[in-house]
């Protein structure tokens, strides 16, 4: 990994990210600045797309930690990508609820449409596909997470439509592919049916 040719020689936060980093560090009491290591690594990953070693070193220097302590944290958490990933980072949940609801089809569609398997990236650098454990949205299973957004209630055709529009550079709205409201019953509400969501936003809030 350390010999990876993709590793940039150096890394530094842009002024914008630097300001956010300083803001985060300031949240911690004096002498406890190292607690900011997780959010700072996240910032670095957001800035660079993935987390190169130079970024870990930069975070270590900024927090006055030994680099190895940062490497330990970064390698422990699976959400830090230590290798380059595509612009759309697809995380398919295959834990039991998603699997029962057809996650195999979602993964197979990704594989068919993009031509990549789990753990691979497309040559154009647009997509990377990984398999993840429970994303905590079982009620809308199966889920495909694209970068920070959840696309829910997917099946083969819905996944294909999603991937095609991403490939065109269009990012469809996140949420359920079947059009249901958040995690309401698939066939529409079965209780509180008399409530009108459009007219009374305060009441609508209660049903969510």
């Amino acid at each position: 990994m350390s010999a990876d040719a993709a590793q940039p020689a150096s890394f530094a936060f842009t002024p914008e990210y630097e300001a956010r980093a300083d803001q985060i560090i300031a949240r911690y009491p004096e002498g406890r600045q190292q607690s900011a290591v997780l959010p700072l690594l996240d910032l670095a990953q957001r800035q660079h797309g993935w987390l190169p070693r130079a970024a870990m070193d930069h975070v270590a220097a900024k927090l006055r930690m030994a680099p190895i302590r940062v490497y330990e944290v970064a390698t422990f958490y699976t959400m830090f990508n230590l290798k380059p990933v595509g612009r759309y980072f697809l995380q398919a949940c295959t834990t039991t609820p998603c699997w029962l609801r057809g996650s195999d089809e979602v993964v197979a569609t990704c594989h068919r449409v993009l031509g990549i398997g789990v753990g691979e990236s497309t040559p154009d650098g647009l997509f990377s596909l990984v398999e993840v454990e429970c994303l905590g949205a079982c009620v809308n299973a199966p889920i495909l997470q694209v970068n920070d957004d959840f696309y829910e209630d997917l099946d083969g055709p819905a996944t294909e439509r999603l991937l095609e529009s991403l490939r065109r550079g269009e990012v469809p709205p996140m949420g359920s592919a079947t059009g249901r409201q958040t995690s309401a019953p698939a066939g529409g509400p079965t209780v509180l049916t008399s409530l009108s969501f459009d007219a009374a936003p305060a009441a609508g809030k209660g049903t969510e």
Partner: protein
Amino acid sequence: MPKLKIDGIEVEVPPGTTVLQACEMLGIEVPRFCFHERLEIAGNCRMCLVEQEKAPKPIASCAMPAADNMVIHTNSPRARKARQGVMEFLLINHPLDCPICDQGGECDLQDQAMAYGFDRGRFRENKRAVKDKELGPLVKTTMTRCIHCTRCIRFATEIAGVEELGATGRGENMEVGTYVEKALTSELSGNIIDLCPVGALTSKPYAFTARSWELRKTESVDVLDAVGSNIRIDARGPQVMRVLPRLNEAVNEEWISDKTRFAYDGLLRQRLDRPYVRRDGKLVPATWDEAFQAIAARMQGLPGDRMAAIAGNLACVESMFALRMLMDGLGSPHRDCRQDGAAVDPSARAGYLFNTTIAGIEDADLCLLVGTDPRWEAPLVNARLRKRWRRGGFQVVRIGATTDTTYAVEELGNDPALLSAVADGSHPLAERLKAAKAPMLIVGMGAIRRADGAAVLAAARKVADTCGLVRDGWNGFNLLHTAAARVGGLDVGFVPASGGHGMGGILGAATTGEIGLVWLLGADEFDMARLGRAFVVYQGHHGDAGAHRADVVLPGAAYTEKDGLYVNMEGRVQEGRRAVFPPGEAREDWKILRAFSAVLGRPLPFDTLEELRRRIVSAHPALGRRDVAPAPWALFGVAGPIQARPFALPIADFYMTDPICRASTTMAECSDLYVRGDDARTGTHG
């Protein structure tokens, strides 16, 4: 004081004691891998599980504080079953390669598997394999054997002070290593080999050369620095196979430096194994008799005050005492054991000792370093300073060159004038020293190894006096020596007699021809060209600078090849013991001197080592002890002007300080890598 019951025995322990420590107080052994007395508690190996009554499950005794009314069973069926389970899990991923593992025979896992191991494996999956890590020329890794006890990580972080090792990845993918491939940049790195409870970290130079049960073990002391680390020399036949630390809480605890541990291969190379005599400009092999006759012939008619003797850094007390007697008999007042020219004042013992003692560092609360880098000059003193610093409430201030010491140092700058300013109270540090409860001052050889060294020493003494470093039951004045022979040499008076020349004077007189014969007792660390046209006798064990310049070479014994006394920087007299015989015709140094005195017709008055030692003790009673006696505070040093020139450090290359290290290929590799910064060799170089 919590009172608890372990295996039916009531025991009262100090608060904060763990259950495991309480068991040890009763002499009950609890198996463990991750727990180590000198490291922080990790509690991750689970081997120390014991049963606690009324607890829902077995407890990890290493991490559980002893509490009142606990009832502990260390050997109940439940405790045994729990440990057997832990052992089975540990062995799941541990290779069955004991026959080809260097740890075999001294492996904690092997030993404990005898007690708790299952006689067959139930795991049918593949064992995990882990890529080996490259940690430099000293530590060999076989990471598949690692059981993740994290002792090496904790040692590097806490004791060595180099945060370079860590555990990356998680779960089954966790690996111990540096992540970015690099050699460990610590002079204490070899200790992780001893700490490793399995064969994951073994000694690279020792790899596959011997089995622990074939080795003859000799308890001795190290002479490669002035700490006097207690060591165990493991030898097979005529060869030293390895050097390991021996526990001595007062000196090295249970650590040794990499130089102490790995320089032993230098004992095999460049050895002087027969006498040589220079004929027609070339050193040619000779017999002992020819060599002695050649010296005697040169001495014929040469008045004693035209002869001089210089003792080197590795000489034992006996050989220096014998050489001094020999030179006294010849009427030579010119002798010195300070071949680096350090202005150590031999008149008062307190003036040249590390008076605080190494263990005493732990009681200090403020330390002023003067012209010293303890990390290279005495790694275990540095480790002790770091240990004290980690506990908190300890400040280190330095006047001298800036180096990485592994603890925070307040650098005042490298200006000798600062020392005078502290001494006369005009520097704010003076007030801090006065206010401190247990202040100490460490003067390095670099500060006094200069023309104005005596004045620097006097200024340091003045600091000690004016700032109250010497108080009831506390002496905060310390000299940090770098040579194992130095304090012993000063103790037996291997310094100029009245009217005699010191180091500088001897070299000056030799250059002018005033001194016609110089006897070097293993002295190699000065410019041989300054010996001029003097007839040089080199008595020593390695063909280093001194032997190349010599007219007669007398092959002596290295520290592993003779019984000898050494006095460490604290003034602690310790006994080195013979582990192997000197090679070829080489002999123990006191015997050489005794034999030569007979050739001169005036034999030295001893025939055995015991007689010689009795004479030493009757002349210098302090050497009769085997521990440290506080030296009375006295006058020393010669006040004078101090030059503005900054202090230089005495050691340019930690791995190349003496003839043994310079002959060692292991030390040469370390020097290439760590000192000359040839980083390109890491990773590919063997």
